[in-house]
């Protein structure tokens, strides 16, 4: 039993972390797209974000898993199977990135213009200015929102149980139907989600302290 749950926990974490990495990259691109000077790019990104945010999460998961397989079949006339894990990761990162891009966009806009102007006035290139001056400050603004979305993502991984990934929820389901002890197994799964959340919370607090070290604090 224990090793089954251990594997399921690793599966959930694997899904959540790989979606987080992929999702953050996508979110960064989407945020930059929305802030771009090029109107077409701006409109395309805004439409895409609106679309993904407008659909139920489970629909995105189904669409990626079943829809894309079907699409590939129509296009290539061959049946190409996507693993549920891959489909789940892609779907979750699409969902995560749509929401996180809004947090990032707000964070970029919260950095005063004068900050990059000062860099410009010292002959620092705009790329260098972006990752030395704007990004570290935007990160501080984005962290609370992104932390929230990470917790939502963690629990959204349970949706992937429906396309057959043996994650925590699915494992609990399998064991309860086998042993007729649903309370025990669902409660176990719940406890594990909670523990991961608490650990995340702790890490987020540490990160927040690190990003706020330059803000003056008054010791009483």
């Amino acid at each position, binding site marked *: 039993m224990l090793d089954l749950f251990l594997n399921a926990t690793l599966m959930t974490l694997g899904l959540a972390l790989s979606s987080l990495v992929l999702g953050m990259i996508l979110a960064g691109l989407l945020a930059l797209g929305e802030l771009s000077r090029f109107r077409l790019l701006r409109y395309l990104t805004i439409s895409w974000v609106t679309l993904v945010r407008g659909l139920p999460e489970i629909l995105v998961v189904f669409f990626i898993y079943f829809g894309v397989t079907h699409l590939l079949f129509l296009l290539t006339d061959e049946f190409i199977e996507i693993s549920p894990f891959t489909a789940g990761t892609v779907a979750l990162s699409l969902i995560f990135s749509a929401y996180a891009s809004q947090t990032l966009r707000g964070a970029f806009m919260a950095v005063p213009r004068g900050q990059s102007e*000062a860099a410009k006035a*010292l*002959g620092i290139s705009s790329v260098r200015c972006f990752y030395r*001056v704007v990004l*570290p*400050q935007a990160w*501080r603004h984005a962290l609370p929102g992104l932390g929230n979305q990470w917790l939502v993502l963690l629990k959204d991984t349970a949706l992937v149980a429906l396309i057959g990934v043996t994650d925590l929820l699915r494992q609990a389901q399998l064991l309860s139907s086998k042993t007729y002890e649903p309370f025990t197994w669902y409660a176990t799964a719940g406890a594990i989600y909670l523990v991961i959340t608490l650990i995340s919370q702790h890490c987020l607090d540490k990160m927040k302290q690190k990003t706020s070290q*330059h*803000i003056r604090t008054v010791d009483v």
Partner: protein
Amino acid sequence: MGIIVEGLSKAFGSTKVLKNISFTIPRGETTVLLGASGAGKSTLLRMLNLLETPDKGTMSIADMAFNFNDSHNSRQLNKQACALRRKVGMVFQQYNLWPHMTVLGNLIEAPVVQGMPKEQATTKARELLERVGLSEKADAWPSSLSGGQQQRVAIARSLMLSPDVLLFDEPTAALDPAITNQVVEVIRELSHSGITQVVVTHEVEFARKIASKVIYLEDGHIVEDGSSDHFAHPRTEAFRRYLEH
């Protein structure tokens, strides 16, 4: 050679902010640009390091010449602007120190990017901090400094690249009058070192204390242009009235 500006014009949309501005500033002078808000003095200052691009005119500053009358390609202008800004420093009203870097980090960022070895940049930064009277603050965060101290750090930061020209955009507008004198002292000290300074302000008292030359703007035109004795003997009625408020 100092700064030579001829026929500079700039419009934002349909609002003409600067109309055919021409002036000359000899090397080593401390020039004050005076005028009411909306007179165009900040825009003019920002043009001197190309944070704003003029619509028309020519400009010669820090041994670089620019002609805005021809259609110019923006990429090339960008590149030239980058080179220009290394010779023309700027100090802002809101200091614009980078809050996530220490005072020392703020100072060495630009020179290190531009290839100065870190040890050399650090030595230079400590010398400059001493010059503005803040040598003990090297490892402090900007947010722990007072406004006057932050502005002096900002001045030191812009001096790190050893600019030929230093521009000040309302450097004391966010400071209380007692603190303003700290900035006055730094500017006076710098004027002895032969650097050309251009200061935008609307505070006449502050202007009197630092200026060796004054340019008074009204509604996008230069109304008065002369040495600092114009404060005592204004040539135009408009400038005399401005000084009386």
